[in-house]
């Protein structure tokens, strides 16, 4: 049996839970250091003409959709399923769908950006889909299966 160079799988799950802090950034207090509360996350929709992606660092209104029934900044993301690990992957997914109820968004959009509204609106991820418009209707973004490789957030 030989030693193997690797990142501990448990560490990946612990990162998603905020166990480790390597630097000393200024963060918003989570009330208790020993039993912190989960941050709040939001989901904003972006026009197909936008440029959301890996380079964004925080929520911005530029190229965000606008229309009846939609508030700038988007909607609250349901509480995330408790981060878990499987194989060598850490993962988590929101516990419910993202539902934009009774909105009219007539300009085509194709992306949703999830960001941490507790921690200065820092960006988490952007997910793209086929271009859509909504007229006096509801957009439902159903979450993928919360498992290694399919969850919305995977640390592989």
């Amino acid at each position, binding site marked *: 049996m030989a030693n193997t*160079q*690797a*990142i501990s799988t448990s560490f*990946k799950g612990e990162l998603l839970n905020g166990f480790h802090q390597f630097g000393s950034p200024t963060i918003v207090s989570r009330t208790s250091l020993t039993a912190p509360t989960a941050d709040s996350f939001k989901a904003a929709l972006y026009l197909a003409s936008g440029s959301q992606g890996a380079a964004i660092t925080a929520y911005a209104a530029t190229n965000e959709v606008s229309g009846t029934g939609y508030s700038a900044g988007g909607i609250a993301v349901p509480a995330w399923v408790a981060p878990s690990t499987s194989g060598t*992957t850490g993962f988590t997914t929101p516990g419910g769908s993202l539902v934009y109820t*009774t909105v*009219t968004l007539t300009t085509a959009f194709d992306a949703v950006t999830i960001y941490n509204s507790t921690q200065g609106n820092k960006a988490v*991820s952007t*997910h*793209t*889909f*086929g271009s*859509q*418009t*909504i*007229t*006096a*209707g*509801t*957009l*439902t*973004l*159903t*979450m*993928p299966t919360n498992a290694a*490789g*399919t*969850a*919305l*957030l*995977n*640390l*592989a």
Partner: protein
Amino acid sequence: MTKFRAFIQRMKIKFRTFFHGPQITTIYGVRTESDFSKEVGGFENDNEKTSWVEYRDFDGTLVHRSANVQLKKWPEQIGASVGAIR
């Protein structure tokens, strides 16, 4: 008061549904579904499974469109690696 209004709105919709059939939200407000032409569609690829429903007026005006996008997977795995100590 807001809850009371919402209750009244739900009762109105139930009343209309009972006497006139299913109701939908349109650009004209809540209307009877059968007053419009209905079209459904969808597509599926590696990234998503999407379905949509549209209702149009007699003159072709789009009065309602809803969509359901089932995200299938995280499009990119976040890699992690450790550096060698030499």
